[in-house]
């Protein structure tokens, strides 16, 4: 495993014996590191803003939840914030989505597990707001871990995005996110995004198209009924694919019952 980007002093400071860069985003760089023989995800945050604090808070609050990565340590180093997090040995769902194609049982099981992982988060009045395959890591045993609560929001807090919740990845966004209706963003926004993931996993296609305009137009027209070829997936998707969040399943248990 090549050592990249991090200085010798940094590696020594954290007792890192192996390191490779996994992802480089705008605000953070993530490395896979080995410390004392164990692998970790090490995140280096340039600016520890409100988003970062919120993500930490959620991970800390739900550290017993196997569907959310555990955080072991948060430190400052040379003006940057360093987080040592559980390394999830597996793949992003976006990398292995083909394994779910046409497999109703496998898709339903995964979706149910994602919902169950998020249940305590929603019940605590947090919402993820950016659920997509790239933010779901599948462990070697097939169970999902939800990543990147970076734009998650506590429903009683002020929003951290100016637009009131425009999703970072628009193809998985809900109608209320498209319309910038901040007051309608809730756990039922996440329900909608999970529906998009379920449909895509089963069919290999996005339910409302790939383009922002195309999707926006469909949301505006209002009829979001889809047909995937699986009755079970259709029941689930058509229950969550409602333009009005008030018409989507009201409770998490009722959502689980649909899949």
């Amino acid at each position, binding site marked *: 495993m090549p050592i990249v980007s991090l200085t010798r002093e940094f590696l020594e400071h954290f007792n890192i014996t192996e390191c490779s860069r996994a992802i480089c985003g705008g605000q953070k760089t993530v490395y896979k590191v080995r410390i004392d023989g164990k692998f970790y995800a090490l995140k280096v945050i340039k600016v520890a803003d409100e988003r970062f604090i919120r993500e930490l808070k959620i991970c800390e609050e739900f550290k017993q939840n196997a569907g959310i990565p555990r955080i072991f340590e948060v430190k400052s180093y040379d003006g940057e914030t360093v987080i040592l997090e559980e390394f999830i040995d597996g793949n992003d769902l976006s990398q292995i989505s083909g394994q779910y194609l046409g497999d109703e049982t496998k898709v339903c099981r995964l979706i149910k597990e994602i919902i169950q992982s998020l249940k305590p988060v*929603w019940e605590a009045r947090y919402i993820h707001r950016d659920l997509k395959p790239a933010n779901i890591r599948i462990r070697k045993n097939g169970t999902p871990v939800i990543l990147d609560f970076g734009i998650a929001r506590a429903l009683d807090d002020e929003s951290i995005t100016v637009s009131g919740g425009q999703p970072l990845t628009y193809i998985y966004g809900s109608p209320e996110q498209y319309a910038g209706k901040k*007051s*309608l963003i*809730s*756990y039922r926004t996440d329900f909608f995004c999970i529906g998009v993931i379920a449909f895509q996993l089963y069919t290999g296609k996005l339910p409302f198209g790939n383009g922002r305009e195309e999707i926006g137009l469909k949301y505006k027209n209002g009829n979001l009924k889809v047909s995937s070829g699986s009755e079970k997936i259709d029941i689930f998707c058509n229950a969550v694919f409602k333009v*009005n*969040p*008030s*018409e989507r399943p*009201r*409770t*998490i248990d009722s959502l689980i019952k649909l899949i």
Partner: protein
Amino acid sequence: MKITHVLGHNSNWNVETYMQNSIGDAFLITAFTHGIHYDAKKLLKPILDLSMIDLQFYGKKESSNIEKGKLSEFDFHPANCEENDVTSVYFETCVKKAIKFQQDNGFKKIIIPNFYENEKVEDIIYLIKTINKYIKTLKEEDEEYYMTLPFANHIIIDKEKVEEILFACTDMDMNFDGYFVVCETKPEFRKKITTDIKVIRNLSTVLKTLKLQSFKTIYAYANWDAIIYLAQTDIDYLTIGSYENLRNFDISRFTNNSSGGPSKGYYFSEKLLNMVRAEHITLIKGTGNLKLVKNEKNIFSEVILKDGYNWNIHRPDINKCNLLAISRLFQEISSISDLKRRKKHVLSLIKNAIEIYKMLESKHVYLDNESSNYHLSVWKTYLKTS
């Protein structure tokens, strides 16, 4: 679905039709008419166990201006507020006392009062959320809590405002058993029911969504146009009322003095799906076309359609005839459990009514104003496109 009598002026007609003609299943006592001593009334005693009470906070302080109303008899009613403005804290206290009043008086279906708000949806939502937290602490197993949702006309025509309210009402944290829906439909002059498709569409969405989310629904102060809503969803309690003010929610009733004025009355025709003015009934009868509009198997109808009957809106038979005809129509529709079949059935009723109007015209019987077919094409369009 339970047909619920709204008990306003001349409540004896409602109670009599329940006792003697098996019309209706439950009662809604109006605080405006019956006041704090409702339970001492001989008439109401036998039906108290089947009753709910609407404490009618709609007009807030302005309700104290009404001469005839008895709302001020309730010491916790905002009509008694001594300050110029009713603050939200004061109003919340009134609501909590209203809940306690109903509990103390043995009501098992508790209607949580709310105020009429013309523009600010956030004020409505704030109160709903506040009271929701409060009732969590006092829920008893044998009590059901219904939060009042009074839709002002300006709100019900705005689908975005309606969705904001529904969004709050259907949140997973809501503890209410159901909602008591009141809607200001504002029919046009010389019309009894609205033809505004926005009102029809959005009110239908309200009732459908609440039911979809497993809340019980009470649609209060309903008129016979409730058949359009009933065509698409189950409503748990649907009210019927004798006088116009019990069938058409209008905020001015709670803020200004008003009276209905003289009238010979109306005949609700199950075949025309409309209220026909007494004068028009005479016209239809005179041209030998009564059979086309006459309600079948309705003993009150038989009485009032006899030659020489002296029509007057305050005569019990006229009102009882309408209560029977409307409740029968509601029941017939709601008895069809399959919603697709139910909608189809209502569409066939509308189609028949349109045909009867055409037949009357072909026989040179022209009905105008309230009696005319001003509503059926809107209903048909709505049901066909929804």
